[in-house]
């Protein structure tokens, strides 16, 4: 893994920062929420305690409220702000509500809406009846027509029965059947109870208004389909214990308003969770909601999944929430609700109202949770954004630093790779060595190492010359002694030893001479003068000489037409050729061909000497021209110290050129090419 990647991974650990921030925010969030719950709950408890002392103003007449049972035909009347028009439409009801289904045993679908003002109660009934049988013009008790029965228990406890029916839609009045003295009966209009009958595509609607003065504590409403005999709703005969009426408590709203703190809504429900009074309104922060829409992406991180919360119930008549149920069971409870739109949470706290240890109802206090949440959310979103930014910055810095370091190391590595040139020379200067850090120290370490290597190389390179010089005197002693011995005369049978000793001395001498050759060439290079020579003519002359000198080898010479003048030291050039040719002759096959080729390009001359010997292993090609590099396997008498091609290189470099070795692509043996610049 590269350093850059490693540091990037390390930098990514700063991502823990926003994560930790998130955790902290969640902790904070739940703590704040708990405190909000506590305060709202204690407020609810306080209100409940206050209200229990004034039970009459809350629950009306003393005594336990009856259990509400819609299936028994019990009706709850919502307080209406305005009296709706009797027009068969419910759109003008305020607040707008949805009707609830009437209980039915025979399958007639009907839905009821009930509301109350100070003077009237209003009932709105929708009946699904494909075939509406109208009332005949002259009604008869036995007539079969669709009707709505209304039974009212008056304030005095008497039961009054009415029915609504019509032959034509429009404003009608309730009718009642009065038993005549003669046993007959006739229909009487009750004009105080008015209604509007309206035909619809799948049935009819009836909106009626009943003065509260006519009304006792019970009321039964029943829709009857004459054709099928199906009914919806009930009658006193069917539900003798049902038909109870439930109203909000008059004046309770004003009482509740005294307990309100801003931004909360207080509701009192009876034991049935039906609303007795409501005061206050929730301040839903619309302005914040707009901003929160942008931040809502973070809400999931901060408060978790809101979808787990129960939805806020917007029913007008009752509060069926779990917390309310718990309160009615005698416990205080709080509950978070999900608003209709996300980002709209609602906190609900409920406390039971006890009168003489019996639970009569509950106080429900609601508070919008969004303000606090939004503020928190924005702060946390900022925190999150900043830490993300910091992380990105840290990662960027880490990657930059890593890149910088790896670039430096790469530079150092490249310099180390190329410190030793193909020609064996060593470049000491390392990049980065001026830096004070570890990489700088490494570079300086490299420099020291290379310095030692250079000293060693230099020592090796001069070793030959030194040896040659130092051994010369003892060798001369041996040889001059042999000379003297020979001159003094030895016995004939000792001549062989003398000859062998002399032969050994000669061989030693040639070894020393070879060892010192490079040093002498370096010396003669220092004293060389360049003259303008025709390289082609020089080559021709030299090759003619080689043909005499190496009669066994075949020489091929190719030179370009015309003269090839260059400024050179001819002796050195010839010496270079000597080495190349000697080398070629050594490697050439017996009676092989040595090709000498001069090539002229735009800017340079190329002298290529090839032989048809075996190719040189490619790993050695680059090193052939190094001092003391020897690749031949021995087998001839001449000592070799790998100086011949080194001398070639010295001379090529003296002329500003360079020497390379290559194997011919067709396997035709190695070619040594020396390139000279033309200038």
């Amino acid at each position, binding site marked *: 893994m590269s350093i850059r990647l490693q540091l990037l991974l390390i930098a990514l650990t700063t991502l823990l920062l926003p994560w930790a921030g998130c955790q902290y925010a969640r902790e904070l969030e739940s703590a704040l929420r708990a405190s909000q719950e506590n305060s709202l709950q204690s407020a609810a408890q306080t209100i409940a305690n206050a209200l229990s002392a004034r039970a009459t103003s809350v629950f009306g007449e003393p005594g336990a409220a009856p259990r509400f049972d819609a299936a028994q035909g019990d009706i709850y009347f919502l307080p209406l702000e305005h009296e709706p028009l009797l027009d068969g439409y419910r759109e003008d009801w305020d607040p707008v509500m949805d009707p609830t289904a009437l209980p039915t045993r025979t399958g007639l679908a009907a839905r009821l809406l009930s509301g109350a003002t100070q003077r009237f109660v209003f009932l709105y009934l929708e009946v699904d009846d494909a075939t509406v049988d109208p009332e005949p013009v002259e009604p008869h008790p036995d007539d079969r027509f669709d009707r709505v029965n209304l039974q009212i228990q008056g304030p005095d406890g008497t039961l009054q029965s009415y029915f609504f029916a019509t032959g034509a839609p429009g404003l009608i009045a309730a009718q009642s059947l009065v038993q005549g003295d003669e046993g007959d009966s006739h229909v009487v209009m009750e004009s105080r109870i008015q209604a509007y009958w309206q035909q619809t595509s799948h049935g009819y609607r009836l909106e009626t208004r009943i003065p509260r003065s006519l009304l006792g504590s019970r009321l039964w409403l029943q829709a009857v389909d004459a054709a099928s005999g199906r009914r919806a709703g009930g009658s006193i005969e069917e539900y003798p214990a049902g038909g109870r009426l439930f109203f909000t408590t008059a004046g309770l709203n004003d009482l509740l308003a005294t307990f309100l703190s801003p931004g909360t809504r207080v509701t009192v429900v009876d034991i049935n969770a039906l609303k007795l009074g409501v005061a206050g309104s929730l301040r839903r922060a619309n302005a914040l909601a707009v901003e929160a829409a942008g931040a809502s992406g973070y809400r999931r991180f901060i408060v978790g999944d809101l979808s787990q919360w129960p939805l806020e119930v917007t029913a007008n008549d009752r509060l069926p929430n779990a917390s309310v149920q718990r309160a009615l069971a005698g416990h205080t409870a709080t509950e978070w609700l999900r608003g209709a739109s996300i980002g709209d949470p609602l906190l609900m706290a409920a406390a039971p109202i006890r009168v003489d240890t019996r639970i009569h109802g509950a106080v429900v206090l609601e508070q919008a949770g969004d303000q606090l949440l939004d503020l928190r959310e924005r702060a946390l979103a900022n925190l999150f954004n900043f830490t993300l930014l910091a992380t990105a910055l840290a990662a960027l810095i880490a990657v930059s630093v890593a890149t910088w370091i790896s670039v430096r190391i790469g530079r150092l590595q490249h310099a180390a790779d190329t410190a030793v040139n193909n020609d064996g020379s060593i470049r000491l200067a390392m990049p980065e060595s001026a830096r004070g850090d570890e990489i700088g120290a490494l570079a300086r370490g490299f420099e020291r190492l290379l310095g030692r290597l250079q000293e060693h190389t230099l020592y090796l390179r001069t070793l030959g010359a030194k040896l040659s*010089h130092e051994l*010369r*005197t003892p060798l*001369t*002693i041996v*040889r*001059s*002694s042999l*000379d*003297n011995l020979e*001159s*003094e005369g030895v016995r004939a049978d000792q001549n062989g030893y003398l000859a062998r000793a002399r032969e050994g001395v000669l061989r030693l*001498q040639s070894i020393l*001479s070879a060892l*010192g*050759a490079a040093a*002498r*060439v370096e*010396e*003669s290079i220092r*004293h060389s003068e360049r003259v303008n020579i025709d390289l082609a003519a*020089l080559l021709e*002359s*030299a*090759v*003619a*000489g*080689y043909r*005499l*000198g190496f009669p066994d080898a075949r020489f091929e010479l190719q030179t370009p037409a015309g003269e090839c003048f260059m400024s050179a030291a*001819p*002796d050195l050039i*010839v*010496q270079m*050729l*000597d080495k190349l040719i000697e080398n070629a002759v050594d490697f050439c096959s017996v009676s092989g061909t040595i090709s000498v080729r001069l090539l002229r390009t735009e800017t340079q001359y190329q002298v290529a000497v090839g032989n048809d010997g075996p190719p040189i292993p490619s790993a050695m090609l680059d090193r052939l021209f190094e001092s003391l590099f020897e690749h031949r396997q021995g087998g001839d008498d001449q000592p070799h110290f790998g100086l011949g091609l080194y001398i070639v290189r010295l001379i090529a470099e003296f002329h500003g050129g360079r020497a390379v070795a290559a194997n011919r692509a067709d396997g035709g043996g190695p070619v040594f090419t020396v390139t000279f610049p033309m200038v």
Partner: protein
Amino acid sequence: MRYDRPMRKLIAVVEDEPALRENYAAALARQGYQVKLYANRASAMQAFSTHLPDLAIIDITLEDEAEGGFDLCRELRALSAEIPIIFLTARDSELDAVSGLRLGADDFLTKDVSLPHLAARVAALFRRIDALRRPDDAAQVLRRGALSIDGEKMQTSWNGAAVTLSLTEFWIVHALARHPGHVKNRQQLMDAANVVLDDNTITSHVKRVRRKFLELDPTFDAIQTVYGMGYRWVE
């Protein structure tokens, strides 16, 4: 005539290596010379100041004096302009050779030279001294155009002006000029000069010879290099 004087020539060998010194002394003594041996410059100079030898063979490095031989040569040359001086040294750099010859040495030999070769040189130098002391004898003079070579006196002149050549250089010129047009390879030149040298040294000898002629005559072009083969004299 001093030439007939039966007195043995005195050769001074200044060499700090005892074994070599003794070997040289033995070889030269065998040739009939009287040999005096010195290990350092001081003792040699002390002896020279009282009695000059007939010929001096000097090593360059003398004990702890790296260039003691050069100094000795200079001092000896100051005592006598004629005494033949041969440098015989393990140092074979061109610079040393040039320095030595410039100080007035007659020859500069490396220690590769064999004792018989050394003896031949010594004899040649004595012969030259003797010839110089004799009246002119034109019979031995070889003429090649502007060049004239006196084989006895080992003197060379170009257009009448003397060319100062060391013994080795003289023999090289002599070998080349005797057969103009013929290419002499390096081995032949070495043989002619009674010396065993490597190719580089022959090359630098030839170079030096050319330079000496060029100093007298900038148009000098008589010694031609035949690359790959050797050198030849052209008239």
